[in-house]
């Protein structure tokens, strides 16, 4: 078909991984460009002048930024192997949970990493509350998408990758097997899917990365 697809990413960006997973699940061929965020390439700055971040998807010379916007674009453009249900109400439900992940789950986990003392406690509490709601949503399902990975699994997939890393870095438990059996099972199942497994960043490098992020943030406070 002669389509040019490029993905600008870093080795570890959880947002960029969403794009990689979606393209890989749909079997779309693309070129990968790894960015060093401390030394951003002119191309990245040209394609994402507003946020200057990864991921950026370039499709036939047109750039798209923001991982969730990119996921919807991928879904709109390549209609095989759909990541969203066909039924509008089920699609709305999927989008609702994607938004929940962005609004509630991610900020709470992020703040658990970046804050300390009472603020960290509150962030951790909020994270646990959000996991309870995810646990409920998984009742009767293997994956958020049902039998197969869907956009919700992709959007929340960073949990399967990063929760154990952050638990080690922070010496803090997030997803206890006994408190969150369904979510724990989902994380294991998700991580084991070949397309996902093959793109996991190396764990030891991730631990080093997040320790450094926390130390840098605490030093500026």
């Amino acid at each position, binding site marked *: 078909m002669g389509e040019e697809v490029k993905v600008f990413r870093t080795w570890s960006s959880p947002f960029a991984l969403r794009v990689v997973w979606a393209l890989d699940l749909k079997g779309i061929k693309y070129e990968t460009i790894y960015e060093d965020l401390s030394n951003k390439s002119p191309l990245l700055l040209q394609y994402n002048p507003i946020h200057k971040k990864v991921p950026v998807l370039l499709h036939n010379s047109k750039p798209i930024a923001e991982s969730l916007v990119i996921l919807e674009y991928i879904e709109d453009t390549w209609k095989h192997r759909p990541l969203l249900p066909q039924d509008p109400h089920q699609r*709305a*439900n999927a*989008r609702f949970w994607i938004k929940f992940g962005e609004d509630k789950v991610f900020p709470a986990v992020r703040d658990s990493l970046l804050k300390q003392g009472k603020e960290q406690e509150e962030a951790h509490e909020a994270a646990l509350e959000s996991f309870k709601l995810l646990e409920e949503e998984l009742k009767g399902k293997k994956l958020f998408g049902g039998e197969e990975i869907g956009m919700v699994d992709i959007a929340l997939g960073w949990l399967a990758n990063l929760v154990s890393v952050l638990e080690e870095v922070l010496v803090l438990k997030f997803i206890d097997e006994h408190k969150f059996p369904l979510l724990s099972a989902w994380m294991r199942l998700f991580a084991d899917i070949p397309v996902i497994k093959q793109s996991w960043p190396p764990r030891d490098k991730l631990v080093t990365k997040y320790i450094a992020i926390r130390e840098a943030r605490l030093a500026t406070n």
Partner: protein
Amino acid sequence: MASSSEKVKVLGFWVSPFVRRVEWALKLKGVDYEYIEEDIFNKSSLLLKLNPVRQKVPVLVHDLKVVAESYVILEYIDEIWKQNSLLPLDPYQRAMARFWAKFAEEKVFETAWNALCSGGEEKEKALKIAIESLEILEGEAKKIQNFFGGDRIGYLDIAMGWIGYWLPVWEQVGCMSILDPLKFPATSAWAKRFISHPLIKHNLPPREEMLVYFDKRSKELSSISQGWIKV
């Protein structure tokens, strides 16, 4: 093609810009609906039943199916009622509309709201981001003649429509200047066109009551909160 109003209900709060997005979308598509006012400070068992996860308005009920979150509802409305499409048909144009809606929400809406509900250095910081972000949006507004959706109001117009009506109220209440018409002529002109549109102008909350509400609400929030308030 109007649906029977019994089949569509909107649970809302009179002053919420998120709720109005849903109503504007339904009006633009000619869909009849029943509006149910919710007191968000004294949440009803109906709201808690319909949206137990977030416990917020707007909630759309269509044929007994429940949809929550204003942007999710907009996409749902566009998929169910195909006339007067809100999002463009082209995937890249759709991505641009979603991208700018997210940008405006995070960099203008949330920052303006935080500026309203904070003081001192925090307020200054929020104002700076809001104004810098409007500068970027001004560039987009200069490219259009009528609406971001073209000749008709579309998804991005609905997403940013609060700028033409809620923002001036917040500016007055918070003694701040954000959307200066001399600095942002294209955005100001677009905002005016949007608010004056026949289907929009009759679906706005009363200004005087908004001033009273936001004055009270911003004072409450600034006395109890520290840090970024997520709306």
